[in-house]
């Protein structure tokens, strides 16, 4: 049987937006669990969140707290919105804390078009992109790369794409970690992972992955100066946002290492409350191998989003009969929300290396962080928060408070409230598509049942999520973006 909690654990209020499940709640908890959400969002969270975040709190070497962000909901192993940092010397690394879709993330590209410019051509551009950016089950990308080229992609991420004509030099700096995780080692990746993913560069996938055309209405600009720095300069400006990851390549790497870790739990003298949390000491051979293989998948995901950006530039250029440069198709930011990274924080007064796992959580660096490119040094890291296809998305910036409190982490999206199976029984894809068109959102989808699963009502209210993380101070809201077209996998 699937097990669920029958009642909510004791939850103590720390302040209006921070809640704590004490360490005494579950045997084996090394630290308390903390949930960063408004009371409304906390009360709406499924009980699975509380069970899962307290399971994470039991993992060896965990520092400070096991966290769940405002968009949190039940996941597998970690909750979605889960963040945990483990001591790099004595703690563990867990593939389940990263997820199967390694470096699933968001990319945002601006245009200098306004709603008025694009509206007459919206069907044309979306139908074009629906063909050139394949999505859904078994889709093949447009790139034909051989095994050696694919290994270069695993090493170099966005840089490979740019060096090979799929982007502009300035795109590299507009990515978290410059679109390249340095510690990738292709010898840690199996041939099966390569053969599963080699044909998928340039594809979106399915589930909650999408490509969306959005508009920045003047009413939704919350911080004008920061909006301009993030490329939102004109009223009714059009932007393109998309969400995807490392596709079958990352899924295979995660599956294989999860099984390897599970087989080695006894040898490593480790026990977990849920096998999806199978882990290994970070310093062990398995731990290091996974970390290096995970980096290969992360770089493939960065390259995947970059070649999709290239296709978008080609598509807009063709439909608007102008160059991507003239159309202002500038890459603003690319951030991961499924990843583990070695980072340094002050804990109990001492600087310490930790392995921060973010499972459906975004990095939030405050101003002047050394990893930020010069153009964002004074505002903090850009944060792309993708919402449901019927409501909208947000841009925010990172804060020092997140660095101090949440291992530089914040929410990643709006978060689901309804299961996919339930959404499919409540909504019909064709009907939803028509309703959205009546409201001015043009949707194309490979699967009508997949579209039904993504209905706006299956998600939390994103404004509530954004207000929560803004008021907590772990990120600051800048712009709200409203969809006018969406491509679903």
């Amino acid at each position, binding site marked *: 049987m699937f097990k669920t909690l029958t009642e909510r654990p004791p939850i103590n209020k720390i302040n209006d937006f921070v809640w704590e499940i004490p360490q005494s709640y579950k045997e084996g908890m090394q630290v308390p669990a903390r949930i960063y959400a408004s009371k409304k969002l906390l009360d709406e969270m499924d009980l699975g969140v509380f069970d899962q975040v307290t399971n994470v709190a039991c993992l060896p070497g965990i520092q400070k707290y096991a966290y769940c962000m405002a968009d949190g909901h039940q996941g597998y192993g970690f909750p979605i919105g889960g963040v945990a940092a483990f001591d790099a010397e004595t703690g563990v690394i867990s593939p389940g804390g990263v997820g199967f879709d390694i470096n699933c993330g968001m990319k945002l590209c601006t245009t200098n078009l306004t709603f008025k410019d694009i509206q007459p051509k919206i069907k044309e551009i979306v139908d074009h992109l629906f063909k050139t950016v394949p999505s859904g089950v078994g889709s093949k990308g447009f790139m034909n790369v051989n095994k050696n080229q694919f290994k270069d992609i695993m090493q170099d991420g966005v840089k490979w794409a740019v060096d090979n004509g799929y982007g502009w030099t300035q795109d590299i700096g507009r990515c978290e970690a410059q679109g390249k995780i340095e510690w990738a080692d292709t010898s840690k990746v199996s041939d099966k992972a390569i053969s*599963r993913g080699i044909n998928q560069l340039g594809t979106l996938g399915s589930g909650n992955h999408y490509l969306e055309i959005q508009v920045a209405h003047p009413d939704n600009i919350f911080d004008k100066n920061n909006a301009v720095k993030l490329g939102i300069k004109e009223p009714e400006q059009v932007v393109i946002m998309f969400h995807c990851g490392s596709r079958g390549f990352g899924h295979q790497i995660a599956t294989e290492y999860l099984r390897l870790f599970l087989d080695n739990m006894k040898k490593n003298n480790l026990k977990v409350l849920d096998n999806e949390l199978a882990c290994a000491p970070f310093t062990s051979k398995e731990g290091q191998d996974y970390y290096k293989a995970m980096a290969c998948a992360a770089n493939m995901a960065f390259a995947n989003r970059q070649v999709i950006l290239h296709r978008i530039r080609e598509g807009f250029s063709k439909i608007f009969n102008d160059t991507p440069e003239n159309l202002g198709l500038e890459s603003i930011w690319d951030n991961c929300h499924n990843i583990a990274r070695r980072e340094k924080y002050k804990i109990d007064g001492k600087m310490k290396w930790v392995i921060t796992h973010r499972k459906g959580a975004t990095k939030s660096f405050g101003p002047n962080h050394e990893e930020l490119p010069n153009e964002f040094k004074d505002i903090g890291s850009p944060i792309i928060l993708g919402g449901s296809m019927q409501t909208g998305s947000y841009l925010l910036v990172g804060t020092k408070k997140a660095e101090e409190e949440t291992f530089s982490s914040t929410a990643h999206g709006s978060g689901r409230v309804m*299961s996919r*199976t339930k959404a499919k029984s409540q909504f019909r894809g064709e009907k939803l598509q028509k309703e959205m068109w009546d409201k001015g959102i043009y949707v194309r989808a490979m699967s009508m049942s997949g579209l039904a699963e993504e209905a706006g009502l299956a998600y939390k209210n994103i404004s509530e999520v954004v207000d929560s993380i803004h008021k907590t101070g772990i990120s600051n809201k800048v712009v709200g973006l409203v969809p006018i077209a969406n491509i679903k996998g």
Partner: protein
Amino acid sequence: MTHKFIEDFATADIAFEASGEDLDELFKSSAEALFEILANPKKVNKSIVKKISLSNKNIENLLYDFLSEILYIKDNDFMIFNSCNVKITELDEIYQLKVTLHGEKINPKKHELHSDAKAITLHQFSIEKTKNGYNSFVIVDI
């Protein structure tokens, strides 16, 4: 031999429970649930045959590896599935699995595609012995 999808569990993923009178049937019904997550099996022809051979001393790990292998074949061979035949034997306390998968190359114009399942999760993954045989509990990452 049946499977059912669970509405109130696994918010962003798909949870299913499958059953069978014996292990062969349990593995077959679990695979059929996965086929249905990917596409409507009724609209998939049996034009391609793929064989899987796996072994493990732990039956749950064997089921996990089997279902994961189906997702690997889905991407590697651009295939979706109609049905499968399963035979499990035990030799020196090690389960030996032999499966024949029937399906065809993915054609979005022809097939009713559902979700591009990413992976089989180990979250609450289990096989339970019942009075009528076995049940499996599986959450698929979408």
